[in-house]
């Protein structure tokens, strides 16, 4: 790895009403890294991303390189079938120019311009499939050319095949645009395949480094509280 750090985190801690969610995290990310954040449910992974975005109060230091623009795809979004909001309106909260919207949709693999203009943009956002909504959210988050993309994997709603292509898509976008990616994933296969760096979080940092080196059975046992079967299961796919 080379290049300068784009983000440095020192002794990061987050507390909600005296309930310690994260403590003593230290790590950094370099330009064009793909950093995966792994850990059990409730380990504070999503909170970590929100702290990095400055959305929750924290202690310690979070230093982004100056002038960094951050794109964000949250884990939870509430897009019901009956939400009256067209895809075009959703984009226009952020970008008014139609050609920019179309170009963002093209870069997430929705390429047919006629289809975009006549079927996607005028459609209710909630009528699209889970996979399509995910693509739309990614297009939305990259439309203003961020330097860093924070991607919080949804826990439900997307089938496994769809998940695979979303990560292929993220990798393709990263290669094309040269941005840095921080992603939360529940699937260690995804981490091995796409990330060049990983941090394991369970309130505190359990491991940090390259996936192949640091994700050994011992640290996974520590991370998931002895549930090594989870680890093995993931590798039997």
């Amino acid at each position, binding site marked *: 790895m080379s290049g300068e750090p784009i983000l440095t985190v020192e002794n990061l801690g987050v507390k909600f009403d005296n309930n310690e969610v994260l403590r003593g995290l230290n790590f950094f990310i370099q330009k064009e890294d793909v950093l995966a954040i792994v850990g059990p449910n409730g380990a504070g992974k999503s909170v970590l991303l929100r702290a990095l975005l400055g959305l929750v109060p924290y202690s310690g230091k979070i230093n982004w390189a100056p002038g960094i623009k951050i794109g964000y795809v949250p884990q939870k979004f509430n897009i019901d079938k009956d939400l009256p909001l067209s895809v075009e*309106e959703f984009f226009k909260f952020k970008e008014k120019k139609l050609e920019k919207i179309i170009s963002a949709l093209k870069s997430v693999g929705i390429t047919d311009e006629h289809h975009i203009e006549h079927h996607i943009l005028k459609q209710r956002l909630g009528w699209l499939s889970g996979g399509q909504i995910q693509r739309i959210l990614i297009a939305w988050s990259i439309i203003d050319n961020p330097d860093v993309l924070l991607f919080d994997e949804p826990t439900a709603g997307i089938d496994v095949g769809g998940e695979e292509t979303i990560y292929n898509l993220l990798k393709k976008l990263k290669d094309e645009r040269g941005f840095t990616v921080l992603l939360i994933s529940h699937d260690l296969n995804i981490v091995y395949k796409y990330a060049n760096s990983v941090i394991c979080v369970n309130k505190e940092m359990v491991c940090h480094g390259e996936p192949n080196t640091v994700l050994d059975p011992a640290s996974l046992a520590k991370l998931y509280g002895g549930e090594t079967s989870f680890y093995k299961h993931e590798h039997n796919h």
Partner: protein
Amino acid sequence: MNIITNPLFLQFLVGITIGLGAGYLGSFMILKRMSLVGDAISHVALPGIAVALIFKINPFLGAFAALLLAVVAIWFLEKKTNLPSETLVGIFFALSLAVGILITPQPELLEALFGDITKIGPFDALITLVLTVIMFLVMFKIHRGLTLSVISKELAQSMGVNVSKSSFLFLLLIALVVALGLKVVGVFLMGALVIVPAAAAKNISISLGDFIKLSAFFGGISALGGILLANYLNLHPGPIVVLTSGAIFLLTLLFKK
């Protein structure tokens, strides 16, 4: 007779203004899944009206003050506690209705409960117009953040939206429109005037733009049609306005998207 003091003209002016405002705000209440908030908080207005009547001040002011207290309480509950606010809101508002019925002077009770737009004066009309315009102006400022926060609070925050502040402003505007609308349909039916036009609009809209505009339009049309019909049939306008919006809702069900 001067048109500004013509009772029917004033009824239409105030009715349509409130209908537009209530329909417009209602669309965002439906988006935010707050359909019953209008119903619940409008009940709180009753003790406010009662106190205003007892001290002989404008009932609108009393109602608005009581509603302000109520929305601050809701906002506080939402923010500070993890208690099921539904339950608390239900209990708190039913109790204030009970208190209101007890202390409202008998002759005015029926008017407070069901509204009486026929008694509207030029000054009420002016207040209604000015405050409704202010409501629209504030909404134009905050509607983007409100809608984004419906999709994802985190996403809205990451775009620099102060979610807590815009929710609070939105509650204040609900209090304002509910207080203004009490003259038209009263404590019991105001909740319907906020929600029914919006629910009708939602049936037939794909986009947010259509939804909001139609919702305001249905609110205005309900008021116009209701007042016309009530005058023609010599009935109480409040319930007829709400029934008109109900008829529109049933019609839109036929064309549901």
